[in-house]
């Protein structure tokens, strides 16, 4: 119940914000009868309506994970965001080994296996991508070698 009420309310608010920003879209001088604003406003309105329906008539709550699992999920998201930023400056091998090892540990908390999975995936995927598929990946940036 509560989940759907929150989701419906959030969806409605986001939809209203979407409509508000859609009204700010600049129109060019070559205007057609519909213009660039109308369709986004229609979508926003339908979404707002649906959000309200969901908030008023909620489904039963899903089974949310425990707090510890939620923490693990949040941490995984943070690691993935860090991985996204690290991929370019630090090269492929190091960030991949860390991120893959971390995810592996989250799925099955066995440290040794996780480390092996991280190193194995990092090296294995690098070889496949670089030499079998010919993608231009950088293993380790030059600045870190010297």
């Amino acid at each position, binding site marked *: 119940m509560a989940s*759907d009420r929150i989701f419906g309310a959030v969806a409605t608010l986001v939809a209203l914000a979407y409509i508000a920003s859609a009204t700010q879209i600049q129109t060019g001088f070559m205007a*057609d*009868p519909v213009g660039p604003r109308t369709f986004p406003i229609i979508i926003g309105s339908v979404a707002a309506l649906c959000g309200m329906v*969901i908030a008023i008539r909620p*489904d039963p709550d899903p089974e949310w994970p425990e707090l510890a699992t939620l923490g693990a999920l949040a941490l995984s998201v943070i690691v*993935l965001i860090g991985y*996204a930023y690290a*991929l370019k400056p630090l090269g492929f091998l190091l960030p991949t080994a860390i991120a893959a090892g971390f995810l592996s540990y989250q799925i099955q908390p066995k440290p040794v296996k996780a480390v092996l999975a991280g190193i194995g995936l990092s090296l294995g995927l690098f070889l496949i991508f670089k030499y079998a598929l010919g993608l231009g990946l950088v293993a380790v940036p030059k600045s870190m070698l010297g």
Partner: protein
Amino acid sequence: MDILSNLAMGFGVALSPFTLMLAVIGCFIGTIVGALPGLGPSNGVAILIPITFTVGLDATSALVLMTAVYYGAMYGGRISSILLNIPGDEPALMTTLDGYPMAKAGRAGDALVLSGVASFVGAFLATLGLIVLAPLLARVAFVFGPAEYFALYMLAFATLGGMSSNNQAKAAIASCIGLGIAMIGVDNNSGLPRLTGGNLHLYDGVDFLVAIVGLFAIAEVFFFIESHGKNTSIGVKLDKVTIPWKDIVETKWTMLRCSLIGFIAGVLPGAGASLGSFLSYMTEKSIAGEEGKFGTGVPKGVAAPEAGNNAAAGGALVPMLTLGVPGSGTTAVLLALLMTLNITPGPTLFTERPEVVWGLIASLLIANVVLLLMNVPMVKVFVKILMVPPWVLLPGVTMVSFVGIYSLSGSYFDLLLMVAFGALGFVLRKLDVPTVPIILGILLGGHMEDALRRAMVLSDGEIGYLFSSPISIGLWLVAVAGFVAPMFLRKVLKKPQRITD
């Protein structure tokens, strides 16, 4: 004769040694992808599209490879359904109902071979249906104006939303999320940016591949983290694999009937493979009656959903190729592939680029035969692949997704978006909001708005123009029916729940 000469041209395109090799590789990879628990046809094909694109294959080769992967994944999906009771995607759910009990009764090999043959029959007949029906529909589609297209898009969203969710409002809001995201970026008509919040990265819009990989693959990783990979133990041992001729002969009518049902369900835009396998299973169940013992591991219960599912996958290609409107999650991913290759599906595709259409159809036929030959003798090899533990598999999937998306644009921003879509997908699926309409919305949003705007230019802003032709009125009526009817039918057509042991 027209069809035969076209088909000959298609085989001319698809039967070169190089493309044939790609088809074999694609089938092999596809079966593996489908068999791995947690990777179904849609997310499997999704993570491979960016990689294919970067490797630099030409359009036909890429198409042959990816359709082979797609069909292979449909085949492979049944392996984890039958042996592990884990459906790779929604349509495969029906296969678990009889496949898993049959495997537990010691007939895992028989179930695998039988379902392989049923998949072959369904997919083969559906491809024949596609060959006959698609050119006809393409001719009809030529009279479609913008008003008809707008109505057609409405129909696709309405039926997909109606069928794929238990709650109409949630399905509709999913479509809106997709359409809303599609609006971001530079407006085609005025050339001015819309809804970018001033972020330069968003001027090109949100790449649908980023959304697909995020919603399908990354979200799946989060689900595995939540469950700590618990429900992935090997359930059933596979001993000797022989060909169960008796079962195949006994289920021949079942396969034919279900292929027809599945094909029709697949052709309906938005309905897709889930409906195909569901209707086939339910029809066969009611034909067999109480004595049929459906649900206890009978051969017919294995053959029916597999034939229906694969026939629907073929049928779903009809609206996708002729109208540019996909019928299911997996065809939406294939549409994304075509759009990545700069091929716009629609009636003009059949006249302007016949080599693509017929090359695709020929490669479907080739892939199908390769898969049957590969699957029966090599099923043991694929079963070995199920042993890959989730703590290696899922990090691997994540890294492949990252590399794929990163090699598309080389920007960290797309990777961040992908992670965001993954988190969004996790929350939405928890809340029982379907994610396929989001993909469809992102893919079709631009076209849908264009259709509306061109219709309004033609009619000078007269709204009634949208409902002025018999075709568009018909489409609107079906759209409303497709959205509203499931609310009342839900009580009658209750989905069988997954069996738990």
